[in-house]
Each structure stands twice: as structure tokens, then as C-alpha cells.
């Protein structure tokens, strides 16, 4: 793991303090977001050397090709730049308590520049991989993540909202795929491509990445209800709310929305409403399904330490009480 961090620094190629800030940002205390990179590294290791490669032992470092390692780093860099750019604020929406407008403007400048800087590093890294198909796949992840910010799940300021056109849980799946799933799924797939593995390996790696993302996000959403505390807050776009909306008459959902708009004082009430409706247990069922799908997609790889590590990680990220 520390290796990824080390290489990431090398790839970015500078001791610039902004980078340190960026890294501090991605560590949120609970989840080290470099976990995504670890998934890519482990699935590369689980898949093993390329079938056509007779000199794999000389090239591979602890079971992973150098370019697969680079890919994992690039993925982390892209994700970090996405987080930074998401943090750009609309100056018209800045409230007086946020701080002086000139400071916010300056913060924006820095967010834009450092995010761009990381993106440029990612582009250079991608170009170095020398595989146009991989460049295309990974670039399309960036497009997907940007798309996620323009759907009816977020308002222009990046706050969670739900528009009337929402289709329910299927929209949640699309949104989760665009914002998190696409990057992990396509990176896992590209890692297979870089080693010259079969189409079956590529498809399975994609399925793995996709389902892990759903399971991980579902677990997070469920936890925000089961371990509710005042500080963490709720989101109207979380899976339990969307499932609740599908389960109850329109009238009841409107009541919930009204409660939500009245502010955090009512959140405890919302939590109990949703728990009673059975939406949470439905979420848990879905979570188990996605988790099992992710684990079964690993069946194509022969048993190894890397494979059991992947299974353990999937189990850990999708664990809810």
C-alpha cells in the first residue's frame, strides 16, 4: 500500500505542498480512499501473469506488472482531482459565514489549478502506458464522473437533491455507477487488458469492480441510517430513501420530504419512518446480492492469497450490523 503512495508521489513528480493537501483530503478518517487502488492491484495479482508472457517473472514486481501498478496510481490521481474539482464553490452561492468572498475565490483558483495539475499528471501517466484502448477506457471514466454531477441527483452547488423525474432505485444505480462504479470497474478491466488477459477475465474484472462499488455505497447509505448521529446528517439521495419512495404511497413520501426540508431537528423522525417501512432491510438484501455477485465474479481466477484478500476486502466494505 505504501508503495502506491510512494509511486503516486513519484508520478506527480513534485514536492509541491498542494499535493500533500490533496492527499490529506482523500483520507477521511474512516475509509482510506486508496482502497480503490488496492482493489486494482489485488485483482491484477489474482489474475496472474499474461498467458503469452514467458518472461513474466522478470518483469513483474510482487505479482503485478509495473504498468498495472501505474494504472492503480493513475486511478487514484483521477479520483483525487475529481474530489478537488467537486470542491469548487459557486461564488454566487457563498454565504457570509463561509468567509470573505475574495478568500473563497482564491480557494477556487487553487482547487481548479491543483485539480488540473493532477489531471495533467494522470494524462501523462496514461500516455506512458502506451495502450490507446486503456487511455480511452480510463478517459471515459472521467467523463462519467463529470456526468454524475449534472444528473438530477445533485443541484448546481453539488448538494443532494431529488427531482420529480427520478425513476427510483434504478436511478440510484446509474448515479452510483457514474460517480464511483465506472472508475473502479473500468480500471479493473484495463488492468486485465494491460496484461493481455482474455475477454472473460476483462468482463469478470469489470463486473467485480461494478458490484463492489454498489455494495460499498449501499453499506455507506445503510450506515447513515442505522448508526445515525446528528453530525453525519442524512441524504435524500441515499438508497433507503429511494426504496422507501417506491414502497409507500406518494402522499407519505411527500410528508417525508416536508419533514426533511424543515431541517435536521426532524432527522431522527425520518430515520424511524424509513426503518419501519422495511426499506432498510430491503437495502440489506440488495447489499448481500451485490456482494455475492462481486465475490462470484472472482471465480474465474485460481485460488491465491490475492484472491482471498479481495474476498476479505469485499466482505469488509459491505459489512453492516
Amino acid at each position, binding site marked *: 500500500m505504501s508503495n502506491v503512495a510512494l509511486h503516486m508521489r513519484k508520478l506527480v513528480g513534485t514536492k509541491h505542498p498542494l499535493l500533500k493537501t490533496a492527499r490529506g483530503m482523500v483520507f477521511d478518517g474512516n475509509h482510506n480512499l486508496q482502497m480503490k487502488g488496492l482493489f486494482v492491484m489485488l485483482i491484477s495479482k489474482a489474475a496472474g501473469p499474461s498467458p503469452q508472457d514467458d518472461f513474466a517473472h522478470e518483469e513483474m514486481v510482487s505479482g503485478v506488472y509495473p504498468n498495472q501498478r501505474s494504472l492503480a496510481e493513475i486511478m487514484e490521481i483521477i479520483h483525487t482531482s475529481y474530489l478537488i474539482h467537486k*470542491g469548487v464553490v459557486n461564488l454566487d452561492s457563498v454565504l457570509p459565514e463561509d468567509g470573505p468572498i475574495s478568500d473563497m475565490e482564491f480557494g477556487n483558483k487553487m482547487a481548479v489549478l491543483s485539480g488540473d495539475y493532477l489531471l495533467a499528471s494522470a494524462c501523462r501517466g496514461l500516455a506512458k502506458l502506451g495502450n490507446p484502448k486503456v487511455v480511452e477506457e480510463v478517459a471515459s471514466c472521467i467523463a462519467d464522473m463529470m456526468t454524475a454531477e449534472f444528473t438530477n441527483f445533485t443541484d448546481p452547488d453539488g448538494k443532494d437533491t431529488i427531482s420529480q423525474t427520478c425513476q427510483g432505485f434504478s436511478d440510484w444505480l446509474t448515479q452510483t455507477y457514474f460517480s464511483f462504479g465506472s472508475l473502479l470497474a473500468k480500471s479493473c478491466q484495463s488492468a486485465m487488458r494491460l496484461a493481455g488477459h482474455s475477454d472473460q477475465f476483462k468482463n469478470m474484472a469489470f463486473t467485480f469492480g461494478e458490484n463492489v462499488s454498489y455494495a460499498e455505497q449501499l453499506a455507506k447509505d445503510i450506515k447513515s441510517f442505522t448508526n445515525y448521529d446528528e453530525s453525519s446528517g442524512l441524504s435524500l439521495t441515499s438508497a433507503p430513501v429511494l426504496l422507501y419512495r417506491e414502497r409507500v404511497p406518494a402522499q407519505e413520501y411527500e410528508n417525508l420530504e416536508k419533514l426533511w426540508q424543515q431541517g435536521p431537528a426532524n432527522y431522527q423522525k425520518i430515520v424511524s419512518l424509513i426503518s419501519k417501512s422495511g426499506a432498510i432491510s430491503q437495502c440489506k438484501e440488495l447489499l448481500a446480492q451485490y456482494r455475492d455477485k462481486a465475490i462470484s465474479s472472482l471465480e474465474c481466477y485460481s485460488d491465491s492469497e490475492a484472491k482471498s484478500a479481495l474476498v476479505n476486502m469485499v466482505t469488509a466494505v459491505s459489512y453492516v450490523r
Partner: protein
Amino acid sequence: MAAPGVSCRVFFRTLKTLRRNRSALNTVQEFTNRTTNGSSEISLNNDSLIRRLHSRPSSFQLTCYHKHCDNQHNHDRHHRHQCHIPSRLATSGSSISFSTKSNAWHLVPSSRTLTTSPLYFSKVTPSSMADIDPYTLVESDMKDLAPDICKVLEIDVPKLEYMTQYYFGRGKAFRPMVCLLMAKVCNNHLNTGEIVLESQRNVAMVAEMLHTASLVHDDVIDAADERRGLESLNKKYGQRQSILAGNYILSKATMLLAQIGNPQIISILSTVIEDIISGEFMQLGSKEDENERFQHYLKKTYKKTASLIANTCKAVAVMSDVEETLVEAAYEYGRNLGMSFQLVDDVLDFVASQQAMGKPTDADLKLGLANAPVLFAAMEHKELQPMIMRRFSEEGDVEYARAMVEKTDGVKQTMMLATRHSEEAVKTLSKFSSCSAREALARVSQILLQREK
């Protein structure tokens, strides 16, 4: 996810330290210094340069050395070279010449004096080239360029689609035009006719997309309200989604580039993306030392503007499969053209009217940027230097700097430098066999000097 404001606050803190600690900015420069693979830079010995400018304009000489990874002359960047014209340029052995008056390639009479206003240039119309409009030659390829780019950007999310397609078809499309002409020149050189390959046209599209994406981000950074005669995206939709839309354009451009399927082309264009952003970082800082400051400016100009033009020219040359020296010539043409383009832009910042530019004039000064005319003026009026260092932040700084530029011949000197680059650009074209596209490219470098917007 963390609240959107949080990261900004974190960044603000970082930047405070960054401002205090100038060495941090130097780190960025060191980084940019290291990435010189495939790029060249110009080094000007300012003192001697200025002396020459004032005494004998015809002997204006420019040190122009190239730094490549594989270059056996490993120039020390701090070492001041005696001014010289590289032999490559002295012995062009071509039909292109500047001295004969009747020559169609005749650009600027050597005896001519430059005035402060580029309006002057519009009166100079060398007879045989007056009616060549470079755009007409590539009209068939240019016609659907913007619609095709819009097709690449299509997506089933209306707001994103609208925002990303917003600027296309509104600008001059200067970069794709140069790129397409260069493609024709290269293809013609190998007797494959003056057609443009599909992949070369894609590079032209990528060039315009990368440029537009960088404009979208620039406008947020510079808080610009207008662009290409339209209300800017950040003004209309806020900073946040503008940035994200810019990223979307970038990623679609990268995808289009990847679909060409040539790792070398991907590599060439990825340096452009890097250069643009490191140019942006360089713009944040300035140098104390007078000489270094001008070099810093030139390097910034290369990274921010010339790199895109130079490397797209190089990319289309690589695709047409011309020999290595011609790839290099294509790159050199683009680099000189790009430098000239930006220098003229700097001049226009002072002299053009707001209406013609589609953006307010004096914009650079107001943003705290010292562009070429100011830097030239500061060589005579040392009192400008502290103003440059404080980025014209105090009241009256902008007005004073403007007055000094008008008083000195900062604009004139900048135009001379731009003219010099234009001439270099035309010279490099002599390596290609003659065709109408080559003539058009030479004309482009001339039009640049005459443009009013």
C-alpha cells in the same frame, strides 16, 4: 463526501503558506523545467537584445537553442550564450527569402519601422498574397468541425451537453485551421496530394477541444464575464459546473485522441495538456531578476499558448509519415507561430478596442500579469518592477503601467519580437515542397501580425 466548501478552505490555507513561501512556487517551476522532453525554448539575452533593438534593428539577433533529451549539447540553462543565429536558419537554401522585394514570401521590409499600433499592419498588403485566405483552403474540412465536435460531446444529460457545446462554432478556430493546413503541407510533401487524413482531422478537433477546455478553466480562474462574444459559462452557470464541464470536454478530447490508436500521438498531445497547466502555474509567479523574468515570460508563453500549436503540428506531421527533420520543422513552425500569436495578443491587450476583442482590454494588467509590452517598458522604467512583483495590486498601478507602456516603445518592441517569430515560422516552411497550403501557412503567420482581434 465532504461538504463542497471544505476543500476550498483547505486550499486557501495551503495557498497562504504558498504565498509566504516563494520557494514553493519555485518547486513548480523546477518541475516544469524538468519536463523539457520534445520542447524547445528561447533564451533572450535581454540587455544586449535591447541595445541591439535600439541601435540597429536589422541586426536583431535571437538566441534560439533547442534542448532535447537526446541532444548532445547539454546546455546549461544559466549559461548565457553569445547571440547567434543557428546555422540551420542561416543556410536555409530555399526559395523563401525576406530580402527580395518582388518575392511573394516577402513579409516585412527590413527598412520598415514599426509603429505602436498594429492597425498599421493592415495597410501593408504584399501584392501577390493579398487574396489568399488561409481558411478557404481547408474550408471543406473546417465546415463541419464544430458540428463534429458537438457530436463527440453528445450526452443524454441536457445541461451538460449544452454547457460543453456552448463555445464551439463561435471562435476563430485558429488552431484547427493551422493544424489542417500543416497536415496538407506534410501530405503534399510525400506526394499523397493535398488531402487531410481522417486521423489528422481528429487531431485538429482535439486541438480545438483542448483549447476550449483550457479557456473554460481559465475564465473561472480569471473571473472573466465574456468569452467569444458570449456570456462566459462561469458567469452563466457558476464556477463549479463550469470546471466540471471543462473536465468533460478534456476527457472526451482524450477519448477521441485515443481512438486514433497511435501511442506516439497520444504521447505528443499529453505533453500539451501538461504544458498548458504548468504554464498556468508559471503565470502565478514572477521573477525578481530582470533577465530571468523575461525568460520566465517566454517560457510561460510557450507552455500556455505555443505548445498546443507546435505539438498539434508535430502530431499531424508524424501521422503523414514525413521524415524526422520535417516533423521537427512542423513543430518549429507551430512553436514560432504560437509565440508570435501570444505576443500579438499581448499587444492587442493594450491597443485593441473591447468590442473587437470580445474581451476587455488591459485585462492582463488588471489580473496582475506583466505581459511583454510591460516587461519591455520595465527595462527602461525600473519603477515598474516593484509593481510587477506586487502584481499591480495597488491603486494606480495599472494606469501607471499603461502610461509607461505608451511612453516607451514596449508595444513596438513586442511587435518586433512577434515579427521575428513570424519570420522564423515562414523560414521553417522552406523545408517542405511548395504548395498552396504552404503558402497559406506563410500567410497565416503574416495575418497574425495584422490581426485586430
